[in-house]
């Protein structure tokens, strides 16, 4: 469960309003897609959810815990995949996964089982003992995804997770996202790929110039603009 209550964030001493009075709730078991043009405030919102940025006003809560007041509780049930896989390049893939397992406290049995399973799925079994420095962009993205899945978090927050992934990996990640939410967990992700959002998300939010301009299921969004495809709805709503 994820709740953003009147959240605002500005830069440049208030001159640039990146996120403006954003309120939304993502229920357990829900995949929430967050769309918006470049610079609309998607990454800023995501960074506030995971605690990388502090909101100027408003609150963010994960499973009822305030991200500012109960930061540690929130962090222990949330994982995050950034838009660019800036990770410890000098560690091997396995060392990195072990690091994540150690800080989230994943037990050995589960850790072994999950790591082996996802390495297999994402075709990284051969590379896991090599330094991350030797990985391609897509491989780095995959190892960050595996790391985010490893603690089996209550809430996953992903910033454009499909970027750099090959079609097979994209297919797998979509399946894993659905599986994650079918267990009653929450998933919040941003994307520019309309098809993915349309097919995968239970609900979609569209942000433009820091304001949430639309939010609902695909059917609700269609009613809103009398348009058929999400692409047209998006273009219409953000062309202002």
């Amino acid at each position: 469960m994820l709740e953003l209550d009147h959240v605002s964030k500005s830069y440049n001493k208030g001159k640039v309003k990146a996120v403006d009075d954003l309120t939304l709730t993502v229920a357990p078991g829900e995949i929430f897609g967050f769309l918006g043009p470049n610079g609309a405030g998607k990454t800023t919102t995501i960074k506030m959810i995971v605690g990388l940025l502090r909101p100027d006003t408003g609150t963010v809560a994960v499973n009822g815990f305030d991200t500012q007041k109960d930061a540690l509780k929130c962090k222990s049930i949330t994982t995050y995949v950034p838009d660019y896989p800036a990770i410890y390049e000098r560690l091997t893939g396995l060392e990195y996964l072990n690091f994540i397992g150690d800080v989230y406290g994943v037990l050995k049995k589960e850790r072994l089982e999950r790591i082996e399973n996802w390495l297999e799925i994402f075709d990284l079994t051969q590379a896991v003992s090599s330094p991350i420095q030797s990985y391609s962009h897509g491989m780095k993205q995959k190892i960050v995804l595996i790391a985010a899945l490893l603690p089996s978090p209550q809430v996953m927050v992903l910033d454009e997770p499909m970027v750099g992934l090959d079609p097979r990996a994209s297919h797998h990640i979509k399946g894993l996202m659905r599986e994650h939410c079918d267990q009653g967990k929450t998933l919040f992700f941003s994307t520019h790929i309309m098809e993915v959002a349309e097919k995968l998300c239970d609900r979609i939010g569209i942000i433009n110039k820091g304001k949430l301009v639309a939010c609902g299921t695909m059917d609700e969004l269609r009613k809103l603009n009398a348009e058929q495809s999400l692409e047209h709805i998006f273009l219409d709503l953000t062309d202002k």
Partner: protein
Amino acid sequence: MKRLFTLIRVALKVNFGLSVLYHRVFRQKKDIWIGLVAVLILISIIPTIYGYLKLVEGIYSALKPVGQEQALLTFALLAGQFLILVFGLYYVVSAFYFSKDLDMLIPLPLKPFEVMLSKFIVILVNEYLTVLPIVAPVLVYFGILGKAGLSYWVNALIIYLLLPVIPLAIVSILVVGMMRVVNLSRKKDALIIVGSLLLIAASIGLQFVFGRSGRSQLDANAMVNFFTSPDSLLKRVGAGFPPSIWATKALAGGFSGPALLNLLIFAGTSLALFYGMLVTAEKLFYRGLVGIGEISGRRKALSQAEMSRLVSSGRRPVKAIFWREWRIMNRTPIFLLNGVLTVILIPILFIVMARSGTGDNAFILKALGSAKSVYVILASACFLLICGCLNGTSSSTFSREGGQFWMSKIIPVTPREQVMAKFLHSYLIALLGVCAGSVLLILVLHLKLAVCAAAIMFGLVGAAGMTALGMIIDLARPLLEWTNPQKAIKQNLNVLFSIFADLGILAVLGFFIRVLTKAGIRGNSILVLVFAVLILLSWLSYWFLLRMAAKRYREIEV
């Protein structure tokens, strides 16, 4: 040419963060305190500069009656060039081969020498700043004391501008050649470290050889030569590096024929080496550079048994973060050279300089062997602290995370635990330095074991405080935006502030000991008091660090 100038301008802007600084100070009205800090730093170094000028004046007055005052210039120029030679190595390896912008520069329609030249100019400007406090006061004061004319000032300016070119060009040619070979191998990181160590060893060896030759010359010719020949001391000092003699003669002679000839030789050598460097760059730079960052992994699946052995269990955040720090530090060549290797190198450098008899260190080490045991313990402890703490490990511990700091912000580990793990790592490196220093104290100075053990006790306690202090300084303003790992440690002001702070603490402790001695307090009581003060300072620093961590981890936004 216009393309080259644009490239150099951009490189300088990026290196000094000029655009970002302008944006933050003048547009966002942030970081205005930087100006205040700069003023404070300038004010704080005034006493040091004053002391240095007094020293220069003293040496000048002592040398002038025997006609040896020019040796002062040679000393300063030689020291500056030697410094450039050693520091330049770090700068060159890092800027030429590990800047992240190289991936963007290589595909551009630029010639290899243009890319390397832009990097070279950035290092050159950095070196002007590095040697400024050592060379400039001597040049200026020498001119003032000797009531020099216009010719002196013109030559001084030319020489100052050319000063870093020879050592930097030599280092660049060596490094570019070395990297060409390194890039052929799979073990690139290891070769970079070994190669850099060999170059450092060569420069130390040079110092050793010249120090020795200088001393034997002094022994052989006794004092006769010292007084009779107008430039004998100068020759002896400059024997290590002839360009400093050419520069001295050019400075001393003004616009006279021999002086201009020396200036011509100095400038000609600089330009020849510079040109040689450009030719080397055009031929070898890209061959050594392209693919240097690519590491080929072994791509072999782990067996079930291996996997089971390597995968750990449960929550152990401090251990996990400690190992992360340890691995990243030791696997990044630039960090390794500045961390573990520096703490081992400092004692070796100290001893080589002492053995070669060129520096004051010989005197210090001799004095250590003859003074009262209380002072030997304190002086040895001071030496051990210098060995263990005058490196950038603790004062760059947050900065080194750079763009990966986001992970420290999101993991479910309290700032307190994270900082404890980082402290353990930095303290371990400091302990390594204390151990290396202790080995040398015992083996080279034949210090009694009991005395050495006491010094180690002081060193261990003091190192804890200095480690915490370094971390506090870095945590106050971590440098997280860097494209070149060099910036996180070697060009990080936090490292410099921390070294100043450590030296300041040692100076204050020295003053404290002096006051105690004057007050008639006996030997062992001094030891007890100093030890108590060290414990208190270390505990306070560590306590403050932990308190500060919770606040700063929340405040730092990435």
